[in-house]
Protein backbone atom coordinates (compact mmCIF):
# COMPACT_ATOMS: atom_id res chain seq x y z
CA UNK A 1 0.00 0.00 0.00
CA UNK A 2 2.70 2.39 1.07
CA UNK A 3 4.81 1.51 -1.95
CA UNK A 4 1.95 2.19 -4.22
CA UNK A 5 1.60 5.59 -2.67
CA UNK A 6 5.26 6.40 -3.20
CA UNK A 7 5.11 5.22 -6.77
CA UNK A 8 2.18 7.47 -7.42
CA UNK A 9 3.88 10.37 -5.75
CA UNK A 10 7.11 9.83 -7.64
CA UNK A 11 5.21 9.44 -10.86
CA UNK A 12 3.42 12.69 -10.42
CA UNK A 13 6.67 14.45 -9.62
CA UNK A 14 8.09 13.14 -12.88
CA UNK A 15 5.15 14.41 -14.85
CA UNK A 16 5.39 17.69 -13.10
CA UNK A 17 9.06 18.23 -13.81
CA UNK A 18 8.85 16.97 -17.38
CA UNK A 19 6.60 19.79 -18.40
CA UNK A 20 7.97 22.52 -16.17
CA UNK A 21 7.90 25.14 -18.91
CA UNK A 22 4.16 24.91 -19.06
CA UNK A 23 3.02 24.02 -15.59
CA UNK A 24 2.47 26.90 -13.20
CA UNK A 25 2.24 26.14 -9.49
CA UNK A 26 -1.27 26.66 -8.20
CA UNK A 27 -0.16 29.18 -5.63
CA UNK A 28 2.46 31.86 -5.22
CA UNK A 29 3.77 33.77 -2.21
CA UNK A 30 3.07 37.49 -2.11
CA UNK A 31 4.62 39.76 0.45
CA UNK A 32 4.20 43.50 0.73
CA UNK A 33 6.79 45.76 2.26
CA UNK A 34 6.30 49.39 3.14
CA UNK A 35 8.85 52.17 3.14
CA UNK A 36 8.21 55.47 4.87
CA UNK A 37 9.61 58.58 3.25
CA UNK A 38 9.47 62.26 4.20
CA UNK A 39 11.11 65.02 2.17
CA UNK A 40 12.83 62.38 0.07
CA UNK A 41 14.49 60.81 3.09
CA UNK A 42 13.81 57.65 5.05
CA UNK A 43 11.59 58.46 8.02
CA UNK A 44 13.21 58.34 11.46
CA UNK A 45 11.60 58.88 14.85
CA UNK A 46 14.67 59.41 16.96
CA UNK A 47 14.84 63.17 17.01
CA UNK A 48 15.83 63.88 13.43
CA UNK A 49 14.21 66.93 11.87
CA UNK A 50 12.65 66.96 8.39
CA UNK A 51 11.35 69.74 6.17
CA UNK A 52 7.66 69.69 5.32
CA UNK A 53 6.36 70.75 1.90
CA UNK A 54 5.40 74.06 3.57
CA UNK A 55 9.06 74.65 4.42
CA UNK A 56 8.41 74.23 8.15
CA UNK A 57 10.70 71.94 10.09
CA UNK A 58 9.11 68.87 11.64
CA UNK A 59 10.43 66.24 14.04
CA UNK A 60 8.25 63.13 13.81
CA UNK A 61 7.75 61.02 16.95
CA UNK A 62 5.10 58.50 16.03
CA UNK A 63 3.75 57.24 12.74
CA UNK A 64 1.21 54.43 12.48
CA UNK A 65 -1.69 53.49 10.25
CA UNK A 66 -3.99 50.67 9.29
CA UNK A 67 -3.98 49.00 5.90
CA UNK A 68 -6.97 46.74 5.50
CA UNK A 69 -8.95 44.66 3.06
CA UNK A 70 -6.09 43.90 0.71
CA UNK A 71 -7.03 42.49 -2.69
CA UNK A 72 -5.09 41.38 -5.74
CA UNK A 73 -6.80 41.61 -9.11
CA UNK A 74 -6.13 40.38 -12.58
CA UNK A 75 -8.07 42.86 -14.72
CA UNK A 76 -7.73 40.70 -17.84
CA UNK A 77 -9.30 37.57 -16.41
CA UNK A 78 -11.28 39.07 -13.53
CA UNK A 79 -9.54 36.80 -11.03
CA UNK A 80 -9.45 38.36 -7.59
CA UNK A 81 -7.77 37.32 -4.39
CA UNK A 82 -9.31 38.82 -1.26
CA UNK A 83 -7.28 38.45 1.90
CA UNK A 84 -9.49 37.20 4.73
CA UNK A 85 -9.44 39.07 8.09
CA UNK A 86 -7.32 41.69 6.45
CA UNK A 87 -6.28 44.26 9.07
CA UNK A 88 -2.66 45.35 9.32
CA UNK A 89 -1.28 47.86 11.74
CA UNK A 90 1.79 49.39 10.10
CA UNK A 91 4.10 51.49 12.21
CA UNK A 92 7.45 53.13 11.73
CA UNK A 93 8.84 51.54 14.88
CA UNK A 94 7.04 48.23 14.46
CA UNK A 95 5.67 46.10 11.67
CA UNK A 96 6.21 47.35 8.11
CA UNK A 97 5.17 44.37 6.06
CA UNK A 98 2.09 42.46 5.07
CA UNK A 99 2.57 38.79 4.35
CA UNK A 100 -0.31 37.61 2.18
CA UNK A 101 1.12 34.10 2.28
CA UNK A 102 0.33 31.72 -0.59
CA UNK A 103 -2.27 33.12 -2.95
CA UNK A 104 -3.79 31.53 -6.09
CA UNK A 105 -1.44 32.05 -9.03
CA UNK A 106 -2.36 34.73 -11.52
CA UNK A 107 -0.83 37.64 -13.44
CA UNK A 108 -2.18 40.16 -10.98
CA UNK A 109 -2.02 43.69 -12.30
CA UNK A 110 -3.83 45.57 -9.56
CA UNK A 111 -3.47 45.94 -5.83
CA UNK A 112 -6.45 47.27 -3.92
CA UNK A 113 -6.37 48.17 -0.24
CA UNK A 114 -7.79 50.67 2.18
CA UNK A 115 -6.34 53.06 4.68
CA UNK A 116 -8.22 52.67 7.93
CA UNK A 117 -10.62 50.11 9.30
CA UNK A 118 -13.94 49.36 7.57
CA UNK A 119 -17.22 50.32 9.16
CA UNK A 120 -17.98 46.83 10.46
CA UNK A 121 -14.65 46.34 12.24
CA UNK A 122 -14.63 49.97 13.29
CA UNK A 123 -17.84 49.42 15.25
CA UNK A 124 -16.43 46.70 17.50
CA UNK A 125 -13.78 46.73 20.14
CA UNK A 126 -13.86 43.09 21.24
CA UNK A 127 -11.18 42.28 18.70
CA UNK A 128 -7.73 40.78 18.79
CA UNK A 129 -4.46 40.95 16.90
CA UNK A 130 -3.82 44.22 15.10
CA UNK A 131 -7.26 45.45 16.19
CA UNK A 132 -6.66 44.81 19.89
CA UNK A 133 -8.38 47.77 21.59
CA UNK A 134 -5.61 47.87 24.21
CA UNK A 135 -3.27 49.47 21.71
CA UNK A 136 -3.02 53.21 21.28
CA UNK A 137 -4.96 52.94 18.02
CA UNK A 138 -8.32 52.44 19.72
CA UNK A 139 -9.89 55.76 20.49
CA UNK A 140 -11.91 56.58 23.54
CA UNK A 141 -13.80 53.45 22.50
CA UNK A 142 -16.88 55.31 21.39
CA UNK A 143 -15.35 56.31 18.16
CA UNK A 144 -13.70 53.19 16.82
CA UNK A 145 -10.10 53.25 15.70
CA UNK A 146 -7.60 55.85 14.69
CA UNK A 147 -6.81 55.05 11.05
CA UNK A 148 -3.66 57.09 10.84
CA UNK A 149 -1.54 58.63 13.58
CA UNK A 150 1.24 61.12 13.01
CA UNK A 151 2.70 62.92 15.98
CA UNK A 152 5.65 65.22 16.15
CA UNK A 153 6.78 68.73 16.78
CA UNK A 154 7.57 71.77 14.72
CA UNK A 155 8.63 75.34 15.27
CA UNK A 156 5.79 77.75 14.75
CA UNK A 157 7.02 80.19 12.13
CA UNK A 158 5.03 83.05 13.65
CA UNK A 159 5.85 82.63 17.32
CA UNK A 160 9.08 80.61 17.05
CA UNK A 161 7.64 78.38 19.77
CA UNK A 162 8.06 74.63 19.75
CA UNK A 163 4.63 73.21 19.12
CA UNK A 164 3.14 69.74 18.83
CA UNK A 165 1.29 68.24 15.92
CA UNK A 166 -1.20 65.52 16.83
CA UNK A 167 -2.82 64.00 13.78
CA UNK A 168 -5.26 61.25 14.76
CA UNK A 169 -7.44 60.53 11.76
CA UNK A 170 -10.32 58.09 11.97
CA UNK A 171 -14.12 57.83 11.57
CA UNK A 172 -15.82 55.98 8.75
CA UNK A 173 -15.86 58.88 6.29
CA UNK A 174 -12.07 58.88 6.30
CA UNK A 175 -11.74 55.22 5.33
CA UNK A 176 -10.16 55.46 1.88
CA UNK A 177 -9.72 52.76 -0.71
CA UNK A 178 -6.74 52.88 -3.01
CA UNK A 179 -6.04 51.04 -6.25
CA UNK A 180 -2.53 50.72 -7.58
CA UNK A 181 -1.38 49.15 -10.82
CA UNK A 182 1.18 46.40 -10.61
CA UNK A 183 3.65 45.41 -13.23
CA UNK A 184 5.80 42.35 -13.31
CA UNK A 185 3.70 40.07 -11.13
CA UNK A 186 3.68 36.73 -12.93
CA UNK A 187 1.54 33.73 -12.12
CA UNK A 188 3.44 31.20 -10.05
CA UNK A 189 6.32 33.56 -9.26
CA UNK A 190 6.66 34.54 -5.64
CA UNK A 191 6.92 38.30 -5.38
CA UNK A 192 7.63 41.01 -2.86
CA UNK A 193 5.80 44.23 -3.63
CA UNK A 194 7.39 47.40 -2.32
CA UNK A 195 5.05 50.22 -1.40
CA UNK A 196 6.21 53.65 -0.46
CA UNK A 197 4.28 55.83 1.98
CA UNK A 198 5.22 59.39 1.25
CA UNK A 199 4.40 61.51 4.29
CA UNK A 200 4.68 64.76 2.31
CA UNK A 201 1.40 63.74 0.72
CA UNK A 202 -0.40 64.11 4.04
CA UNK A 203 0.33 67.83 3.85
CA UNK A 204 -0.50 68.43 0.19
CA UNK A 205 -2.62 67.56 -2.77
CA UNK A 206 -5.33 68.62 -2.83
CA UNK A 207 -5.21 70.36 0.56
CA UNK A 208 -2.07 72.23 1.50
CA UNK A 209 -1.33 72.33 5.22
CA UNK A 210 0.72 75.11 6.73
CA UNK A 211 1.07 74.06 10.36
CA UNK A 212 1.85 77.51 11.70
CA UNK A 213 -1.38 78.83 10.16
CA UNK A 214 -3.67 76.22 11.67
CA UNK A 215 -6.19 77.23 14.30
CA UNK A 216 -5.17 74.17 16.27
CA UNK A 217 -2.65 71.48 15.49
CA UNK A 218 -4.70 68.73 17.05
CA UNK A 219 -6.26 67.24 13.94
CA UNK A 220 -8.70 64.57 14.98
CA UNK A 221 -12.25 65.03 13.78
CA UNK A 222 -14.17 67.43 11.61
CA UNK A 223 -13.07 69.36 8.59
CA UNK A 224 -9.28 69.26 8.98
CA UNK A 225 -9.25 65.50 9.50
CA UNK A 226 -11.35 65.14 6.35
CA UNK A 227 -8.83 67.22 4.45
CA UNK A 228 -5.92 65.07 5.56
CA UNK A 229 -7.89 61.96 4.60
CA UNK A 230 -8.48 63.46 1.17
CA UNK A 231 -4.74 63.96 0.94
CA UNK A 232 -3.96 60.37 1.86
CA UNK A 233 -6.60 58.96 -0.46
CA UNK A 234 -4.40 59.67 -3.47
CA UNK A 235 -0.65 59.65 -3.92
CA UNK A 236 0.24 58.86 -0.31
CA UNK A 237 0.88 55.15 -0.72
CA UNK A 238 2.21 54.11 -4.09
CA UNK A 239 3.80 51.01 -5.55
CA UNK A 240 7.48 51.52 -6.14
Amino acid at each position, binding site marked *: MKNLFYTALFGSLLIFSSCKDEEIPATMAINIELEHVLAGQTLELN*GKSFTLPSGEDFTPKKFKYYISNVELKNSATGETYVEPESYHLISE*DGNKSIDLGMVPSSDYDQLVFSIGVDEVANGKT*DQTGDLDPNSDMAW*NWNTGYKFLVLEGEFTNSKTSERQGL*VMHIGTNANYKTITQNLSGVRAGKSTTLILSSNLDELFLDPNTLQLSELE*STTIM*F*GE*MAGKVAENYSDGFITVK
Partner: protein
Amino acid sequence: MRIQIPAWLGLVCVCGLISCGNEMESPVSGPTQISLNSPDYFPNNVAMPADNPLTEQGVQLGRMLFYEKKLSADGSISCASCHQQQKAFSDGKQFSFGVNEAKGDMNAMSLSNLHWQNRFFWNGRAKTLEEQAVQPIEDEREMNLPIEEAVKRLEADTKYPALFKNAFGTEDINAELIGKALAQFERTLISANSKFDAWIRNEVELSPEEKLGMELFFTHPDPKLQLRGGNCSDCHLGFLTAGDPNGFTGFHNNGLDAEEHLASGLQSVTGNPFDKGKFKAPGLRNIALTAPYMHDGRFQTLEEVLDHYNDHIQNSPTLDVLILEASNELPDGSDAVKLHLSKDERKAIISFLHTLTDQEFITNPKFSDPFN
Protein backbone atom coordinates in the same frame (compact mmCIF):
# COMPACT_ATOMS: atom_id res chain seq x y z
CA MET B 1 -19.98 66.49 15.25
CA ARG B 2 -21.07 64.87 18.44
CA ILE B 3 -19.33 61.74 19.49
CA GLN B 4 -21.80 59.02 20.17
CA ILE B 5 -21.30 57.32 23.42
CA PRO B 6 -23.56 54.38 24.09
CA ALA B 7 -22.77 52.32 20.98
CA TRP B 8 -19.62 51.02 22.49
CA LEU B 9 -21.07 50.24 25.83
CA GLY B 10 -23.14 47.41 24.42
CA LEU B 11 -20.25 46.14 22.41
CA VAL B 12 -17.81 45.92 25.18
CA CYS B 13 -20.20 43.81 27.15
CA VAL B 14 -19.74 40.94 24.77
CA CYS B 15 -16.40 40.53 26.45
CA GLY B 16 -17.12 37.62 28.68
CA LEU B 17 -16.18 36.83 32.19
CA ILE B 18 -12.75 35.95 33.35
CA SER B 19 -11.78 32.73 31.68
CA CYS B 20 -11.12 29.80 33.91
CA GLY B 21 -7.56 28.68 34.39
CA ASN B 22 -7.39 25.43 32.56
CA GLU B 23 -4.87 23.19 34.15
CA MET B 24 -3.27 20.91 31.68
CA GLU B 25 -2.31 17.44 32.74
CA SER B 26 1.39 16.97 32.06
CA PRO B 27 2.15 13.75 30.22
CA VAL B 28 5.19 13.00 32.36
CA SER B 29 5.40 13.73 36.02
CA GLY B 30 6.84 17.14 36.63
CA PRO B 31 5.54 20.60 37.33
CA THR B 32 1.90 21.18 36.43
CA GLN B 33 1.48 23.77 33.71
CA ILE B 34 -1.16 26.38 34.34
CA SER B 35 -2.34 29.41 32.42
CA LEU B 36 -3.06 32.91 33.62
CA ASN B 37 -6.57 33.81 34.77
CA SER B 38 -6.98 36.92 32.71
CA PRO B 39 -10.12 38.42 31.24
CA ASP B 40 -10.56 38.18 27.50
CA TYR B 41 -10.46 41.96 27.10
CA PHE B 42 -6.80 41.96 28.10
CA PRO B 43 -4.41 41.53 25.17
CA ASN B 44 -4.30 37.87 24.29
CA ASN B 45 -1.25 37.82 22.10
CA VAL B 46 1.41 37.87 24.79
CA ALA B 47 3.01 34.45 25.08
CA MET B 48 4.65 33.03 28.19
CA PRO B 49 8.42 33.01 27.73
CA ALA B 50 9.30 29.66 26.15
CA ASP B 51 12.00 29.04 28.74
CA ASN B 52 9.81 29.83 31.72
CA PRO B 53 6.37 28.26 31.39
CA LEU B 54 3.95 29.00 34.20
CA THR B 55 3.59 26.07 36.58
CA GLU B 56 1.75 25.55 39.83
CA GLN B 57 5.00 24.61 41.59
CA GLY B 58 6.93 27.52 40.09
CA VAL B 59 4.30 30.02 41.21
CA GLN B 60 4.19 28.51 44.71
CA LEU B 61 7.97 28.72 45.01
CA GLY B 62 7.97 32.26 43.64
CA ARG B 63 5.43 33.30 46.21
CA MET B 64 7.62 31.97 49.02
CA LEU B 65 10.68 33.72 47.65
CA PHE B 66 8.71 36.95 47.32
CA TYR B 67 8.00 36.85 51.05
CA GLU B 68 11.40 35.36 52.04
CA LYS B 69 13.39 37.65 54.34
CA LYS B 70 16.45 35.42 54.09
CA LEU B 71 17.01 37.05 50.71
CA SER B 72 18.10 40.25 52.44
CA ALA B 73 21.54 40.72 54.00
CA ASP B 74 20.33 40.98 57.60
CA GLY B 75 17.17 38.93 57.18
CA SER B 76 15.02 41.96 57.87
CA ILE B 77 13.15 42.51 54.62
CA SER B 78 11.68 40.69 51.66
CA CYS B 79 10.27 41.87 48.34
CA ALA B 80 6.96 42.22 50.13
CA SER B 81 8.35 44.83 52.51
CA CYS B 82 8.31 47.34 49.67
CA HIS B 83 5.59 45.64 47.64
CA GLN B 84 2.75 45.15 50.15
CA GLN B 85 -0.43 43.44 49.02
CA GLN B 86 -2.84 45.75 50.84
CA LYS B 87 -1.25 48.67 48.99
CA ALA B 88 -1.48 46.88 45.64
CA PHE B 89 2.15 45.85 46.08
CA SER B 90 3.56 49.29 46.72
CA ASP B 91 4.76 50.63 50.09
CA GLY B 92 3.16 54.01 50.71
CA LYS B 93 6.49 55.77 51.15
CA GLN B 94 8.10 58.38 48.98
CA PHE B 95 11.33 56.40 48.95
CA SER B 96 11.61 52.85 50.19
CA PHE B 97 13.94 51.76 52.92
CA GLY B 98 16.22 48.80 52.28
CA VAL B 99 18.31 46.95 54.82
CA ASN B 100 20.04 49.09 57.46
CA GLU B 101 17.54 51.85 56.75
CA ALA B 102 19.30 52.49 53.43
CA LYS B 103 17.15 54.92 51.51
CA GLY B 104 16.60 54.64 47.78
CA ASP B 105 15.76 57.53 45.49
CA MET B 106 12.86 55.96 43.64
CA ASN B 107 9.25 55.33 44.60
CA ALA B 108 8.39 51.62 44.88
CA MET B 109 6.23 50.62 41.93
CA SER B 110 2.89 48.93 42.34
CA LEU B 111 2.95 45.43 40.85
CA SER B 112 0.01 44.19 38.78
CA ASN B 113 -0.70 42.91 35.30
CA LEU B 114 3.04 42.67 34.68
CA HIS B 115 2.65 39.92 32.09
CA TRP B 116 1.51 42.59 29.60
CA GLN B 117 4.51 44.82 30.07
CA ASN B 118 7.88 44.62 28.46
CA ARG B 119 10.30 46.87 30.23
CA PHE B 120 10.70 47.17 33.95
CA PHE B 121 11.75 49.84 36.45
CA TRP B 122 10.96 53.53 36.05
CA ASN B 123 13.78 53.91 33.53
CA GLY B 124 13.15 50.60 31.75
CA ARG B 125 16.54 49.07 32.50
CA ALA B 126 15.27 45.48 32.95
CA LYS B 127 14.17 43.68 29.79
CA THR B 128 12.25 40.83 31.38
CA LEU B 129 10.60 40.06 34.68
CA GLU B 130 13.05 37.20 35.11
CA GLU B 131 15.96 39.59 34.76
CA GLN B 132 14.30 42.21 36.97
CA ALA B 133 13.49 39.86 39.83
CA VAL B 134 17.02 39.20 41.00
CA GLN B 135 18.19 42.81 40.90
CA PRO B 136 16.56 43.98 44.17
CA ILE B 137 18.26 41.14 46.03
CA GLU B 138 21.69 42.46 45.13
CA ASP B 139 20.86 46.18 45.17
CA GLU B 140 22.70 47.64 48.12
CA ARG B 141 19.87 50.07 48.84
CA GLU B 142 17.36 47.26 48.83
CA MET B 143 18.16 43.75 50.03
CA ASN B 144 21.94 44.07 49.64
CA LEU B 145 22.70 40.36 49.41
CA PRO B 146 25.20 38.99 46.84
CA ILE B 147 23.32 36.48 44.76
CA GLU B 148 25.79 33.66 45.52
CA GLU B 149 25.04 34.21 49.18
CA ALA B 150 21.29 34.08 48.46
CA VAL B 151 21.78 30.78 46.64
CA LYS B 152 23.79 29.38 49.56
CA ARG B 153 21.13 30.33 52.06
CA LEU B 154 18.38 28.71 50.04
CA GLU B 155 20.45 25.55 49.52
CA ALA B 156 21.07 25.29 53.24
CA ASP B 157 17.37 25.69 54.00
CA THR B 158 15.26 22.62 54.80
CA LYS B 159 12.40 23.46 52.39
CA TYR B 160 13.87 25.10 49.30
CA PRO B 161 15.93 22.37 47.59
CA ALA B 162 12.84 20.16 47.33
CA LEU B 163 10.69 23.08 46.17
CA PHE B 164 13.18 23.95 43.41
CA LYS B 165 13.21 20.29 42.41
CA ASN B 166 9.41 20.25 42.14
CA ALA B 167 9.35 23.43 40.13
CA PHE B 168 12.39 23.06 37.89
CA GLY B 169 13.50 19.43 38.22
CA THR B 170 16.73 20.27 39.97
CA GLU B 171 17.98 20.97 43.46
CA ASP B 172 20.82 23.04 42.01
CA ILE B 173 19.62 26.46 42.95
CA ASN B 174 20.97 29.40 40.95
CA ALA B 175 20.18 33.04 40.22
CA GLU B 176 18.38 32.20 37.01
CA LEU B 177 15.93 29.86 38.71
CA ILE B 178 15.29 32.33 41.52
CA GLY B 179 14.43 34.91 38.88
CA LYS B 180 12.20 32.50 37.02
CA ALA B 181 10.21 31.51 40.11
CA LEU B 182 9.74 35.11 41.23
CA ALA B 183 8.67 36.10 37.72
CA GLN B 184 6.10 33.31 37.63
CA PHE B 185 4.51 34.45 40.87
CA GLU B 186 4.55 38.08 39.71
CA ARG B 187 2.75 37.16 36.47
CA THR B 188 -0.15 35.76 38.50
CA LEU B 189 -0.65 39.17 40.16
CA ILE B 190 -3.54 40.08 37.89
CA SER B 191 -5.88 42.85 38.89
CA ALA B 192 -9.08 42.55 36.86
CA ASN B 193 -11.95 42.78 39.28
CA SER B 194 -12.35 46.47 39.94
CA LYS B 195 -15.60 48.37 39.46
CA PHE B 196 -14.24 49.39 36.05
CA ASP B 197 -13.91 45.69 35.15
CA ALA B 198 -17.42 45.00 36.39
CA TRP B 199 -18.58 47.88 34.19
CA ILE B 200 -16.71 46.45 31.21
CA ARG B 201 -18.48 43.15 31.85
CA ASN B 202 -21.80 44.98 32.05
CA GLU B 203 -22.38 43.96 35.65
CA VAL B 204 -22.62 47.44 37.16
CA GLU B 205 -23.29 51.00 36.12
CA LEU B 206 -20.84 53.78 36.79
CA SER B 207 -22.13 56.90 38.52
CA PRO B 208 -22.57 59.91 36.21
CA GLU B 209 -19.42 61.45 37.67
CA GLU B 210 -17.36 58.27 37.19
CA LYS B 211 -18.63 57.99 33.65
CA LEU B 212 -17.74 61.58 32.84
CA GLY B 213 -14.32 60.91 34.34
CA MET B 214 -13.89 57.82 32.21
CA GLU B 215 -14.81 59.70 29.05
CA LEU B 216 -12.39 62.49 29.87
CA PHE B 217 -9.69 59.96 30.73
CA PHE B 218 -10.03 58.29 27.35
CA THR B 219 -10.35 61.42 25.21
CA HIS B 220 -7.71 63.63 23.66
CA PRO B 221 -9.27 67.11 23.65
CA ASP B 222 -10.04 69.06 20.51
CA PRO B 223 -11.11 72.59 21.35
CA LYS B 224 -12.11 73.36 17.75
CA LEU B 225 -14.91 70.83 18.15
CA GLN B 226 -15.57 71.42 21.84
CA LEU B 227 -14.49 67.86 22.43
CA ARG B 228 -13.30 67.84 26.02
CA GLY B 229 -10.70 65.44 27.29
CA GLY B 230 -7.98 64.78 29.80
CA ASN B 231 -5.86 62.83 27.26
CA CYS B 232 -4.74 60.36 29.95
CA SER B 233 -5.25 57.36 27.68
CA ASP B 234 -2.80 58.79 25.17
CA CYS B 235 -0.19 57.21 27.44
CA HIS B 236 -2.12 55.07 29.96
CA LEU B 237 -3.64 52.85 27.31
CA GLY B 238 -6.76 50.74 27.05
CA PHE B 239 -8.25 48.44 29.63
CA LEU B 240 -4.91 47.98 31.34
CA THR B 241 -4.44 51.77 31.65
CA ALA B 242 -0.74 50.98 31.24
CA GLY B 243 2.01 52.25 28.97
CA ASP B 244 2.53 50.95 25.45
CA PRO B 245 4.40 47.63 25.79
CA ASN B 246 6.18 48.12 22.44
CA GLY B 247 9.87 48.68 23.03
CA PHE B 248 10.26 52.05 24.76
CA THR B 249 7.12 53.55 23.24
CA GLY B 250 5.50 53.55 26.67
CA PHE B 251 8.12 55.92 28.09
CA HIS B 252 7.32 59.62 28.18
CA ASN B 253 8.31 62.91 29.69
CA ASN B 254 5.07 63.98 31.39
CA GLY B 255 6.27 67.44 32.28
CA LEU B 256 7.34 67.04 35.90
CA ASP B 257 10.46 69.16 35.59
CA ALA B 258 11.86 71.96 33.49
CA GLU B 259 14.96 71.33 31.44
CA GLU B 260 17.53 72.31 34.07
CA HIS B 261 16.14 69.81 36.60
CA LEU B 262 15.27 67.00 34.24
CA ALA B 263 16.34 63.57 35.53
CA SER B 264 17.97 61.36 32.95
CA GLY B 265 15.34 58.57 33.07
CA LEU B 266 15.29 56.47 29.92
CA GLN B 267 18.39 58.27 28.64
CA SER B 268 20.45 56.36 31.21
CA VAL B 269 19.41 53.16 29.42
CA THR B 270 19.46 54.17 25.75
CA GLY B 271 22.17 56.84 25.87
CA ASN B 272 19.98 59.01 23.62
CA PRO B 273 19.54 62.66 24.76
CA PHE B 274 16.14 62.53 23.07
CA ASP B 275 15.08 60.19 25.92
CA LYS B 276 16.04 62.52 28.76
CA GLY B 277 13.34 62.84 31.39
CA LYS B 278 11.28 59.98 30.01
CA PHE B 279 9.94 57.42 32.46
CA LYS B 280 7.72 54.38 32.26
CA ALA B 281 4.03 55.28 32.12
CA PRO B 282 2.77 52.90 34.78
CA GLY B 283 -0.56 51.12 34.76
CA LEU B 284 -3.06 53.02 36.91
CA ARG B 285 -4.96 50.07 38.32
CA ASN B 286 -5.39 50.45 42.10
CA ILE B 287 -3.89 53.91 41.82
CA ALA B 288 -5.96 55.19 44.75
CA LEU B 289 -4.03 52.74 46.96
CA THR B 290 -0.52 53.47 45.77
CA ALA B 291 0.29 57.03 46.87
CA PRO B 292 2.65 58.79 46.78
CA TYR B 293 2.94 59.24 43.03
CA MET B 294 5.55 59.50 40.25
CA HIS B 295 9.05 58.03 40.06
CA ASP B 296 10.18 60.19 42.95
CA GLY B 297 6.94 60.02 44.90
CA ARG B 298 6.58 63.80 44.76
CA PHE B 299 2.77 63.93 44.84
CA GLN B 300 0.84 62.82 47.91
CA THR B 301 -2.64 62.74 46.41
CA LEU B 302 -4.46 62.24 43.14
CA GLU B 303 -5.64 65.85 43.42
CA GLU B 304 -2.01 66.94 43.20
CA VAL B 305 -1.51 64.66 40.19
CA LEU B 306 -4.46 66.19 38.39
CA ASP B 307 -3.31 69.71 39.28
CA HIS B 308 0.04 68.81 37.79
CA TYR B 309 -1.41 67.65 34.46
CA ASN B 310 -3.84 70.57 34.35
CA ASP B 311 -1.79 73.55 35.47
CA HIS B 312 1.83 72.81 36.24
CA ILE B 313 3.32 71.13 33.19
CA GLN B 314 6.98 72.11 32.89
CA ASN B 315 8.09 72.54 29.32
CA SER B 316 11.37 71.04 28.13
CA PRO B 317 12.75 69.80 24.82
CA THR B 318 11.56 66.24 25.48
CA LEU B 319 8.12 67.07 26.86
CA ASP B 320 5.74 64.66 25.17
CA VAL B 321 3.88 66.16 22.20
CA LEU B 322 0.66 64.61 23.43
CA ILE B 323 0.89 66.87 26.47
CA LEU B 324 2.38 69.83 24.63
CA GLU B 325 -0.52 69.76 22.21
CA ALA B 326 -3.38 68.84 24.55
CA SER B 327 -5.67 71.64 25.60
CA ASN B 328 -9.37 72.12 26.08
CA GLU B 329 -9.09 75.71 24.94
CA LEU B 330 -7.73 77.21 21.76
CA PRO B 331 -4.24 78.70 22.15
CA ASP B 332 -4.39 82.09 23.84
CA GLY B 333 -0.97 83.24 22.73
CA SER B 334 0.75 82.44 26.01
CA ASP B 335 3.30 79.67 25.86
CA ALA B 336 2.14 77.90 29.04
CA VAL B 337 1.10 74.31 28.50
CA LYS B 338 -2.29 73.92 30.16
CA LEU B 339 -5.03 71.35 29.85
CA HIS B 340 -7.83 73.72 30.95
CA LEU B 341 -10.03 71.13 32.62
CA SER B 342 -12.58 72.52 35.06
CA LYS B 343 -12.47 71.64 38.74
CA ASP B 344 -15.45 69.32 38.34
CA GLU B 345 -13.82 67.60 35.39
CA ARG B 346 -10.68 66.97 37.40
CA LYS B 347 -12.80 65.61 40.22
CA ALA B 348 -14.59 63.35 37.77
CA ILE B 349 -11.30 61.90 36.52
CA ILE B 350 -10.32 61.19 40.11
CA SER B 351 -13.66 59.42 40.67
CA PHE B 352 -12.93 57.31 37.64
CA LEU B 353 -9.45 56.51 38.96
CA HIS B 354 -11.11 55.21 42.13
CA THR B 355 -13.10 52.70 40.06
CA LEU B 356 -9.75 51.05 39.29
CA THR B 357 -9.44 49.84 42.89
CA ASP B 358 -9.73 46.07 43.11
CA GLN B 359 -10.58 44.80 46.60
CA GLU B 360 -10.29 41.19 45.53
CA PHE B 361 -6.74 41.80 44.31
CA ILE B 362 -5.54 43.22 47.62
CA THR B 363 -7.17 40.48 49.68
CA ASN B 364 -6.67 37.47 47.42
CA PRO B 365 -5.18 34.76 49.69
CA LYS B 366 -3.18 33.39 46.74
CA PHE B 367 -1.04 36.51 46.77
CA SER B 368 -0.59 36.78 50.53
CA ASP B 369 2.29 35.85 52.81
CA PRO B 370 2.59 32.03 52.73
CA PHE B 371 4.51 32.02 56.01
CA ASN B 372 1.55 33.37 57.97
